[in-house]
């Protein structure tokens, strides 16, 4: 079988970016949560807030570190596998990615150290300020990356001259039509991720009765937050979808599994899209509902996938089902948040063990939803890389062979498997140790290194099993 460098490069990029994305998505939400905790401690002086802030800062340190390590590869991927695209889009993409890096470094250089290591060494107000700046910095980083991605989805403000994009208007290119929706959707997703993870961990601590006072506060706070955010996200997602309908109708058609342009389009609950047959092999849906959602009246016309020739259609099955996973998880999040409100009214929020167990499980849901959402938007624009202008095949590195792409794909899987295993394993240890004081003694002189991970002092294995050291 001939190895296809295009397919392998797409798989590699999908793998690397999916792996990388889960860390920043989490750290953006967590940075804001830390700022809130530090703010509450600053205002009330209640030590429970401080204990929570200290604990979650450790988790943040590990997650941030993992994000940086996995992100290094990203900055080289564009050149190794998509060199034609890199060269063509460099005038816009280069400054965007560089500003992201510059923001991240500026942040790390100036404020991250104070946030992670400065507690008790700088005035409390300064520490709070650093915490706010770290949170702001994560937004600015996301801003640049999403501007770059959104421009690839809805390219404006640039002109293609001799095979290269030239920026005619920075503001138009950065604030391109899909950017505001994507950015809002993504920031909310980050908050939901932070909220569900904190709620899940707090639920587990409540189940085993550890540090009950602080964890009740955290749990209650998160559930209020989720009660607001989960429905808001559904509304924002709807606007994002309408925006996509305007600019990338084929993507929306694939999300709906709608092959022919038609009015009174059903919302398919189940279907098996078959691109070869250009139809759904089976389908089951609610008549008119997709038209209602997308055009806001039942008789509205919804474009079909077949408006685009098969060569310009995305892999419909994947887009269709990724979309259903994302929406399904989003609805589950709303349901859980409402159940929390119900239990709160009944006064059973902290001792309903079934609900606490459920919240533990739900802490995985935002990660799956975020990945599914990115699958929808990224696979949904296939075969385009810069929508309507440059397709993936044109963008690929011409000298890349299938064998080379396969080698690095397997290589990155192996490398990331080790990194991921070590990181997640270590995170679970941090969580298991919880808000206990650190086991290892602190020494002020050696507390200054600014590497994020050194903010956590949890040993990698159980100390009891330590063999004699050679």
């Amino acid at each position, binding site marked *: 079988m001939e190895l296809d460098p295009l397919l392998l490069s797409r798989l590699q990029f999908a793998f690397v970016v999916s792996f990388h994305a889960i860390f920043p998505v989490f750290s953006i939400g967590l940075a804001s949560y830390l700022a809130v905790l530090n703010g509450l401690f600053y205002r009330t002086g209640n030590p429970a807030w401080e204990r929570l802030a200290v604990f979650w800062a450790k988790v943040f340190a590990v997650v941030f*570190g993992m994000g*940086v*390590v996995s992100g*290094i*590869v990203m*900055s*080289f991927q*564009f*050149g*190794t596998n998509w*060199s*034609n695209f*890199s*060269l063509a889009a*460099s*005038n*816009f993409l*280069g*400054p965007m*990615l*560089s*500003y*992201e*890096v*510059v923001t991240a*470094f*500026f942040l790390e*250089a100036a404020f991250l150290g104070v946030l992670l290591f400065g507690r008790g060494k700088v005035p409390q107000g300064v520490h709070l300020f650093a915490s706010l700046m770290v949170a702001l910095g994560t937004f600015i980083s996301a801003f640049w990356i999403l501007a770059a991605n959104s421009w690839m989805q809805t390219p404006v403000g640039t002109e293609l001259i001799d095979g290269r994009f*030239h*920026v005619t208007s*920075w503001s138009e290119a950065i604030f391109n039509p899909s950017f505001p929706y994507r950015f809002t959707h993504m920031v909310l997703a980050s908050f939901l991720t932070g909220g569900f993870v904190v709620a899940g961990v707090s639920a587990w601590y409540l189940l085993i009765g550890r540090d009950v006072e602080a964890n009740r506060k955290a749990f209650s706070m998160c559930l209020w937050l989720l009660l607001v955010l989960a429905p808001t996200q559904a509304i924002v997602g709807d606007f994002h979808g309408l925006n996509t309908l305007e600019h990338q109708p084929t993507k929306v058609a694939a999300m709906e599994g709608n092959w022919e342009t038609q009015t009174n389009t059903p919302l398919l609950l189940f279907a098996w899209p078959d691109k070869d047959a250009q139809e759904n092999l089976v389908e089951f849906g609610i008549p008119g509902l997709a038209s209602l959602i997308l055009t806001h009246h039942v008789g509205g016309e919804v474009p079909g996938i077949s408006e685009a020739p098969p060569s310009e259609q995305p892999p419909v099955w994947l887009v269709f089902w990724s979309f259903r996973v994302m929406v399904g998880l989003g609805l589950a999040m709303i349901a859980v948040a409402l159940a929390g409100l119900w239990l709160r009214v009944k006064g059973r929020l902290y001792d309903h063990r079934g609900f606490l167990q459920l919240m533990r499980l739900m802490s995985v849901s935002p990660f799956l939803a975020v990945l599914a959402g990115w699958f929808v938007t990224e696979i949904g624009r296939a075969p385009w890389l810069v929508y309507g202008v440059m397709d993936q095949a044109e963008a690929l*590195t*011409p*000298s*890349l062979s299938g*064998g*080379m792409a396969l080698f*690095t794909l397997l*290589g990155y899987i192996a*490398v990331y498997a*080790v*990194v991921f295993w*070590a*990181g997640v394993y*270590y995170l679970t240890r941090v969580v298991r140790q919880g808000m206990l004081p650190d086991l*290892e003694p602190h*020494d002020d002189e*050696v507390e*200054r*290194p600014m*590497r994020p*991970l*050194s903010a956590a*002092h949890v*040993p*990698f*294995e159980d100390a009891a*099993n330590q*063999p004699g*050291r050679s």
Partner: protein
Amino acid sequence: MQMFDLSLIWALIIGFGVIMYVLMDGFDLGVGILFPFAPDDAGRDVMMNSVAPIWDGNETWLVLGGAGLLAAFPLVYSVFLPALYLGVFLMLAGLIFRGIAFEFRFKSHRNRHWWNRAFSWGSALAAFAQGVVVGAYIQGFAVEDFVYVGGPFDWLTPFTVLTGFGLMAGYALLGATWLIMKTEGRLQDWAYGLAPKLLVAVLAVFAIISFWTPFVDESVRERWFSHLHLIWVFPVLALACAALVWRAVRQRREGQPFIATLGVFVFTYLGLVVSKWPVIVPPDYTIWDAASAPESQLFLLIGVLFVIPIVLAYTAWTYWVFRGKVREGEGYH
């Protein structure tokens, strides 16, 4: 008309970033290369402690350089990375493994030997790959109409393998002289013993590469031998620094060997840059051919000029905080 030659400004910035990276990550990669040969495990702890607080700041320059190249000289980015495809992967894998080894080695006991291995192999691999990049740069790339058209292993030739080992030796020398400066006792004695051997190895590779390069690259031959050029200043200064390293090690100075080794690197680097200038994607493309649009260069320049001083100040402060000797049992967990 443009008031400033933005491509020139960017060439200076990227050039500065590259040498900052080579000098700073160079010694901590070097410490990693020497790591398995340390006299004992306590020595290994000290070695790692001596670079633990600063290594990731050092790698800042690599990422900044990568993103900066895409923005300022996209042709470099879109030719070097495809041409060095497999080498880039090996370098990144090496850097990642040694990066996480830094984090987890001190938190680990039972599995420590694995993290030791990840640290030393990762460092050696990354150093070798970077040396290969230098060799491939001297060799030049098969480029047609702004697109790399060579094969997947063009970068792997006897010449680039030599530059790969050469840079490993150079980094190891930086690492050894760094350890002379930062440690004492048995470990320092060991580093003192190692430095002259590494210096000899570096000079041997340096000599072979110097004789070989004119045969690999015509334009360099032209520039070196056509008339007596200012270029000859740089190898002379590099050799003078090497002599200084030798003398300082024999006199058991503590700071001088490291500083003089930095000099060897800086002058070798300048010699290379001046030999190639203004070609940035050899053999044909200059910095102006490789440049992005002026408005893009300008857009980023504003941010970078703001951030570089802050990163430099932060770096200087970190080094200041961690000045002085690293002792056994102290340091960073």
